[in-house]
């Protein structure tokens, strides 16, 4: 339980999708002009992340990972379908988004009016696919993956709503003409990211990078092992 809480808080504040990884920036910048639309898209992202991350976890652990197919037969223990992860993940995301859109349109027209227009946008939101692509590098259990998905969604929601609130106030500011719109928004996002960094216990970015590298090295060792195996198979 402590572990889950840890992942939850971490994915909302410290590893925030926007401010730590800069995932989902396109729609983040595009919809943050008005508070209401920002909140709508934020809700949709929480919903979609909270469901597609566990779905992708299942796909990864029971289909793509090396030896994941052993639940069918022991003979498949050496099969590694990780090459296909991009196609499988994006297909799951796109199909789920399409299904949700159709279901929402049929059963709840009022929700569709407030949320529906954002759903197609979400299929190409980097944060959804990015969250799925983090799964192979992190050894989550199913329930941890669910927590991670929900937490990341809430983190994205917070980020987009706060930026939209700032941008609504910005309408009254006298910004130099060429800086208006995108330019000043980027600078604000940068400053907000500094603010969110303080959630990491005032850690310097260097330290974060070291941690990331340690993580990367760990995963690369794994993949090196995989490569050795495949090379061995090949030479046979």
């Amino acid at each position: 339980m402590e572990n889950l809480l840890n992942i939850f808080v971490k994915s909302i504040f410290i590893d925030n999708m926007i401010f730590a990884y800069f995932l989902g920036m396109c729609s983040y910048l595009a919809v943050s002009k008005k508070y209401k639309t920002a909140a709508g898209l934020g809700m949709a992202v929480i919903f979609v992340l909270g469901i597609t991350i566990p779905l992708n976890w299942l796909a990864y652990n029971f289909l793509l990972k090396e030896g994941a197919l052993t639940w069918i037969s022991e003979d498949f223990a050496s099969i590694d379908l990780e090459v296909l992860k991009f196609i499988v993940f994006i297909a799951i995301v796109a199909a789920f988004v399409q299904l949700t859109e159709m279901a929402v349109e049929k059963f709840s027209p009022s929700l569709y009016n407030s949320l529906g227009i954002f759903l197609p946008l979400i299929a190409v939101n980097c944060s959804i696919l990015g969250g799925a692509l983090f799964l192979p590098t992190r050894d989550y259990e199913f329930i941890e993956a669910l927590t991670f998905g929900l937490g990341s969604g809430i983190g994205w929601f917070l980020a987009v709503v706060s930026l939209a609130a700032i941008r609504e106030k910005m309408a009254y500011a006298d910004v130099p003409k060429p800086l208006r719109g995108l330019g000043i928004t980027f600078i604000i996002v940068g400053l907000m990211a500094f603010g969110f960094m303080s959630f990491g216990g005032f850690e310097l970015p260097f330290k974060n990078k070291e941690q990331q590298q340690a993580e990367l090295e760990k995963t690369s060792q794994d993949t090196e092992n995989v490569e050795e195996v495949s090379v061995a198979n090949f030479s046979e």
Partner: protein
Amino acid sequence: MSTETLEKEVKEVKKTSEPLLSKKRKALLTNPLDEDNPITIQVLGICSALAVTVALKPTLVMAIAVTAVLVLANVVISALRNTIPNRIRIIVQLVVVASLVAIVDQVLKAYSYDVWKELSVFIGLIITNCIVMGRLEAFALGNKPWDAMLDGLGNSFGYAWIILAIAFFRELTGSGKLFGVKVLPDGYIGNGVMMSPAGACILLGILIWVIRSRNGYVED
């Protein structure tokens, strides 16, 4: 009916007789570099522009990867444009792009392993890079393969020069290096702000300011 097809044929002939690099086509190639730049004007493909630009080397690899995917995807989708049903076009596009990205990912893993490790998830995220989807939707679905290829090249060069410019400043001020080679004197202490993505955000904001005050583009 027959006259219609005849007219169409005449039109087709007219179009193919257009020189390979006419003025219009040159514009396809050069416009995205400045006045129609994917990052600073169209606001597409921001995620990778901020996340991978810590140093020049991974940025260069990323730019090449995006160029390969964008050009090939543009050509493929443009060649298929009359056979793709409109309702499922997004899924078709995603499948084409995802297959191309999987190929690029494997090639990088084989020939440039260190950089592949460094870029990690961001290679995969080319799939949802808005530049790719945006160009497919806006251009490749309505134009011929050759034009689509030029458009792809133009847009990926426009993307490449912006991310390379950001990476140049970030690597120079962040660690005093260029392409991993030390260029500033030994006493230089790296600027940690520039190494963090937040610094990249502010740098990109300033870059946009400079570019827009040069070409006179104003939002709203």
